[in-house]
């Protein structure tokens, strides 16, 4: 009881905190917290950029940033949960009878309040980040509209076809000039498809008799994969095509070569 | 209800049974209400979307009253 009394006599919150931290289970949990937080930080900063495809547009960059930074921000919270669980796991009792009862903690008001407040805070951070990104995107789409390259995208079972109304060419690959915004008007000839130019980081469903719109700002050159992201029947897995984001010169050459063959890509 | 001499089954009081049954029926009414909501939602949503001009437009009826008699199609 001596320790107990000296705790009671400790006058300052600071002293109480340091006594708390010196407790063996707390310090071990803290070490585990550092470990798990580090794992998630590495996951965010190293693994996601490694797995996610080449960034060819502002939108893809924004997506990658969200994956990286949401992982890093959630790392300490994940760390708290996992460290407490791991510490408990390492403290296990084996045997045919239960261990003696633990401490009768029914609740802890401040802990519940701090926990709830922290999760609300993270929630608000995530919401604000998302809303700002959404808003930026819709403003950009609106201001870019006059100077956008327009591509009409049609999904049909099971091919993608593209029509560039400004150049009057029909194609089956998606080539785009770098540094020029592009507006996709997407429609389906039959069932729902989902237009997904992967490296551009945009996606929009293709619906019958309704046009949906997506907007992208390509910022780097490179090959482009276009996939279908909505199960559309038998050959959904093969409903893919390719393309590229290329320099304006290369793009214009590509357009001219198609116009020379009657406006339809061979 | 028959009252067998051997097989006494404990029956709760009529009030308790009544309370229980009223609650159960009210829950089923909630389910039915959700069903009805689904149908009403379908109607108003499709009417509002008016895909492919598939639902009559109000302008169609009004414009039929124009002097030149040329209705606009949906």
């Amino acid at each position, binding site marked *: 009881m001596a320790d107990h009394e000296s705790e009671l006599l400790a006058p300052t919150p600071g002293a109480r905190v340091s006594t708390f931290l010196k407790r063996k289970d707390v310090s071990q949990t803290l070490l585990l917290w550092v470990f798990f937080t580090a794992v998630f930080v590495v996951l965010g900063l190293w693994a996601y950029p490694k797995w*996610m*495809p080449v960034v060819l547009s502002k*939108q*893809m960059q924004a*997506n990658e940033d*969200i*994956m990286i930074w*949401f992982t890093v921000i959630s790392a300490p919270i*994940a760390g708290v*949960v996992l460290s407490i669980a791991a510490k*408990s796991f390492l*403290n296990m009792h084996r*045997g045919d009878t239960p*261990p*003696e009862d*633990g*401490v*009768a*903690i*029914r*609740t802890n008001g401040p802990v*519940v309040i701090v926990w709830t407040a922290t*999760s*609300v805070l993270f929630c608000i951070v995530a*919401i604000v980040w*998302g809303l700002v990104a*959404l808003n930026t995107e819709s403003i950009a789409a609106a201001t870019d509209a006059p100077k956008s390259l327009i591509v009409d995208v049609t999904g049909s079972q099971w091919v993608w076809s593209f029509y560039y109304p400004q150049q009057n060419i029909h194609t089956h690959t998606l080539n785009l000039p770098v540094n020029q915004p592009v507006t996709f008007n*997407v429609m389906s000839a039959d*069932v729902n498809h989902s237009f997904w130019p992967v490296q551009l*980081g945009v996606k929009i*469903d293709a*619906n019958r*008799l309704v046009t949906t719109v997506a907007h992208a700002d390509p910022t780097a050159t490179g090959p482009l*994969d276009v996939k279908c*992201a909505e*199960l559309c*029947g*038998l050959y959904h897995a093969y409903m893919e095509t390719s393309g590229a984001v290329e320099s304006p010169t290369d793009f214009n050459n590509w357009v001219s070569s198609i116009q020379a063959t009657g406006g339809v890509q061979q | *209800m*028959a009252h067998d001499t051997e*097989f*006494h*089954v*404990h029956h709760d009081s009529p009030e308790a049974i009544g*309370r229980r049954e009223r*609650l*159960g029926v009210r*829950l*089923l009414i909630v*389910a039915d209400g*959700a*069903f009805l909501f*689904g149908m009403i*939602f379908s109607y108003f*949503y499709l009417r509002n*979307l008016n*895909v*492919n001009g*598939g*639902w009559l437009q109000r302008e169609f009826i009004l414009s039929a009253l124009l002097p030149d008699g040329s209705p606009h199609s949906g």
Partner: protein
Amino acid sequence: MTTLSHAPASSRPIPNPKKSLITKLNMGTGIVVGVIFCWGTYFAMKAGRDMTDSHNVNKVLLMSMFAWSIGFLIGIGAFIGPFRWLIGKDLTDEEQLYLAGDGQGWKRYFKYCTDHKVVGIQYLVGVMALLGVGGTMAMMIRTNLATPGSHFVTPVVYNSLVGLHGITMIVAMIIVATGPFGNYIMPIMIGAADMAFPRLNALSWWVLFTAVPVLCSAWFLGGIPTGWTAYAPLSDQAGPGMNAFVATIIIFAVSTAVAGMNITTTVVAMRAKGMKWNRVPIFVIGATISVALAIPAFPTFMVAMIQTGLDRTIATGFYDANVGGSGWLYANLFWIMGHPEVYVILIPGVAALMEIAPVFVRKPLFSYNAAIAGFAGIAGLSVLVWAHHMYMAGWMPSLNGPFMVTTEFISVPTGLLFLVLIGTLWRGRPWMKLPMLCVYAFIWNFLIGGITGIYLSDVPADNYLHGSMYVTAHFHYTLMGAALTGAIGGLAYWFPKMTGRMLNERGGYISFWFIQIGFNVLFLGMFIVGAEGQPRRVADYAHLYSHANLISTMGAYSVGIGMIILLWAIVHSWRSGKIAPMNPWGAKTLEWTVPYPVPLVNFDQPPVVTSDPYGYGRSAK
């Protein structure tokens, strides 16, 4: 009034109402009548119809399937009570006792038995069968995806596997905890003699039973081309197998509504004396909130499916854009159900683990009120988030922001669930048994599932992630890693009370590690290929994704092995496991105060409750 339970079983008169039809009816007669109705409807409707017209094929098949279900229910005697009411009578006391299965041994499991304990076991076996079928399909899916360019199955079969695996598992997961434990254990836990509506209890099980052959018939009718979400207009276009899906859902929705209403009424109206709301075990609260959420949710799914059925039979055009319909209507109706439904799946599993943790850590449940706030908050918010499944649908981009807000906010009550569990673990010494292991697995799995859900709920990130394998990994972490793990923990925990025997420990541990390690390998690999850009529901994929897919498949086989070992452990223990004492875990809830076999009316005397069941622990300090 004397109740029979006071008399020892050997001296109790066995009910056998000789003149009553109910003694002759069972699953066998149900199947006979069901088949007769089915074939009768099929041939009657086929006559005079042009069966090359797909609308006619759909009409005939759908009606035959419903006829099977209704015929089966007639044949097993489900409607005898209502029929008697029509003529101003009801079942006699002797008939009611007969229906409760008194004195019938194993046969009562194959009859229309109103004893909630029998219904619980029926659900347990049914769930295991569904998991087995769905799991086999999953093994076939992963085998096909082991290498790119594999033709283990054709694309037609693959797409059907994906859709049917999905719906089989969703049905299985909806009932995996509330079916066996909500029925068997819950009434005992609240000190009741049975459920509020015992005959409806039997009905909900047998209605579900009739849905299973209907679902399986999809395979013989050409499969389905859609996922389990059965999006329109692909579902309108689909072949005859789609009718099996439509009929299954409509039948299943009836079962769910009835079961939901029964469980909710039981908990509200039949708790033992002294069991105030703040003394109700958390599993009961969780199960009740879950089924109460299901009551308004599933009817909208039913409407969505009825409209699909109407499109397919009489060309109504609800989802046909050519005539003013829209696939978006389907998506909205579906997800208004679909999102609450995933919490219907999740909450009972978590609640079971919250019931388990205090027992094995010998500490009170941390912040019972936070647990309730968590469940209630999740249930309440879940009806406001559905369109996050449709961010990329283009249906109303202006609503993406508001749905993002509501969806992100669900992480707050969800976080409370974590707090309750880790608060219970804190400063405790856990007794390492299989139920407790499941708590740890849950924490790891649900953490990953929850955090990845936060990414998906963010609209810009969802631009990339929607429709990719990342989504598949996320929902398997939550539905399987969290909810199924909770159900397995619940089974290990309540096995002694449901079977009278202890679950084989070594088999349990070995299966646990095969399942959990395999599960994580399987779905972490899937997060990787999703992040790399592999779409979901694809029979084949680019070479870029081959390594991670192969590793995923190996994880899947480990899960399969683990499940088989678990099945062996369950069957072996049920037949010849160690006889369990009345309260092997030293738990404090009411079900551990009754012996096995549990008496027909559960308690000799109705219990009186004076405290909540979490009174563990020595005083602090």
